[in-house]
């Protein structure tokens, strides 16, 4: 059996959870087995996970899991994995998943590959999986040789597939011990898709000259339903909030579309964005290194090009 931990922060299943279950179902098919989804704490519509491929949905409806503690989460997931004889345990490669994957590997005496980006190859019941390493500059292929495997799945690596049937969630209890972490507060930006989950990202750099110029970037993001990001110097000089900083020292993202505006494309910036499916670069300097990593490039003044691009997208949306 393949067990997938489906994250439901503040009671809502995440997009990453749908991706993980879709992936888990495909791994289960490769192994000739079934996929079970597990949720912890209060969760709306856990039955939905059936539509993404889980043939069984388990929920530990214990409100103490509404606060994240990697120790208790890992204990609960490992407990369910053991009781159900899971051969593969899958979590999302998110702040939550990354904090429990290593713990699960220790608890289950399992080999771990974190941040996998594609489906495994299966031979003799063993999984061989790929992930990007060296901050996107290379790909590594690993074979897990232990009887149980733990994988964490990179965001946007697979498209959620909701073609199945919903499955009534079954309530179970687990033995997860008592926690030693007390969550005091959770502060999130409402309204926007968080950067790691965003499918379209509009990002801007020092070429913007001044924080008061960001209106054109926000307008473009608004039209596209995109999330905004920025380069490091922009965050460092407080032109934009720190959570927008992408790159080696910021966060690494892999949206379907990354639009880089007035960003030179330094190697440390690319390290966080070079796994985007499609990259568009807008820069007035034809020699900007970013053009080497781009799929589409526009050599021109961003203050003219960005509003023009926004109008073109609006026109496209109106006619589609």
């Amino acid at each position: 059996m393949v067990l997938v931990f489906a994250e439901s922060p503040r009671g809502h299943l995440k997009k990453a959870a749908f991706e993980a279950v879709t992936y888990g179902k495909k791994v289960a098919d490769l192994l000739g087995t079934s996929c079970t989804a597990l949720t912890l704490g209060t969760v709306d519509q856990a039955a939905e996970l059936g539509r993404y491929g889980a043939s069984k949905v388990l929920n530990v409806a214990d409100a103490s899991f509404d606060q994240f503690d990697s120790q208790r989460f890992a204990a609960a997931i490992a407990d369910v994995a053991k009781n159900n004889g899971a051969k593969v345990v899958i979590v999302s490669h998110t702040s939550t998943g990354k904090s429990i994957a290593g713990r699960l590997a220790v608890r289950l005496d399992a080999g771990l590959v974190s941040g996998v980006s594609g489906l495994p190859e299966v031979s003799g019941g063993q999984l061989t999986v790929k992930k990007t390493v060296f901050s996107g500059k290379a790909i590594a292929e690993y074979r897990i040789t232990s009887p149980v495997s733990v994988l964490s799945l990179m965001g946007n690596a697979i498209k959620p597939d909701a073609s199945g049937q919903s499955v009534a969630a079954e309530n179970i209890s687990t033995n997860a011990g008592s926690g030693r972490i007390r969550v005091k507060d959770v502060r999130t930006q409402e309204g926007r898709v968080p950067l790691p989950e965003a499918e379209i990202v509009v990002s801007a750099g020092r070429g913007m000259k001044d924080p008061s110029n960001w209106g054109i970037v926000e307008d473009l993001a608004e039209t596209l339903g995109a999330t905004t990001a920025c380069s490091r110097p922009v965050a460092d000089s407080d032109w934009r909030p720190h959570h927008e900083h992408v790159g080696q020292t910021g966060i690494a993202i892999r949206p379907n579309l990354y639009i880089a505006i007035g960003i030179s494309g330094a190697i440390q910036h690319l390290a966080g964005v070079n796994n985007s499916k499609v990259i568009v670069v807008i820069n007035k300097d034809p020699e900007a290194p970013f053009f080497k990593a781009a799929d589409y490039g526009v050599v021109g003044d961003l203050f003219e090009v960005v509003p023009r691009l926004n109008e073109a997208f609006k026109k496209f949306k109106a006619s589609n």
Partner: protein
Amino acid sequence: MKFLVCISQTPDTTAKISFSADGKEFNAAGVQFIMNPYDEWYALVRACELREALGGSVVALNVGPASNETTIRKALAIGADEAVRINAEPKSAAFVAKQIAEYARNEQFDAIFFGKETIDYNGSEVGAMVAEILDLPYISYASKLDLNGNAATFERDIEGGVEVLEADLPFVVSASKGMAEQRIPNMRGIMTARTKPLKVVEPVPFEEQVETVKFSLPPAKAGVKLVDPENMDELVRLLHEDAKVI
């Protein structure tokens, strides 16, 4: 207070990455190595700041061969009081975690620090593994850490926000941007680093459960397609019809 900071050595951020012909090994020839930035800038510096405020000691630990000692001396120059090198090639996250945990088990550290991930294998695995082996709380991606008596308060980065939390000592923490500011070692630090203790410990046995099949370089991009800046309708068309991302 006794703090352990686990430091990793990684290729420099701008290093050109290549592999042996069979794809089995990283090609280190001509590559400049550095201390993993998250370990150095945030974890190590914050541990030193807390030691300066509260007293105690900071131990820097690296799992690696003797050639890593330049990096270890840098940690001492930045402010660690002593260092430990576990004499082995850091073959995998699980191997490194096992070595660190076995060393830390009997040392009564009040906190064990990691960087949020290494910039080479990008695993973010070791901290969680050490915490599990030692049965300790683990606070990952902490951008803020303060100690008050026997408790610690943290802010940790989560998708689209921050979580504020509290835990009792001892704990394991992984540091992200914001926890501290990078420190450049000064002359005095560099001088005293030469005479600070650096202990070498032999590794404990470990059985790998993950094998590297091979490394490869990503397929080269087809090359940029330039679009006339006057004609953004054309860019939209390409993104819709060719790239199919809108």
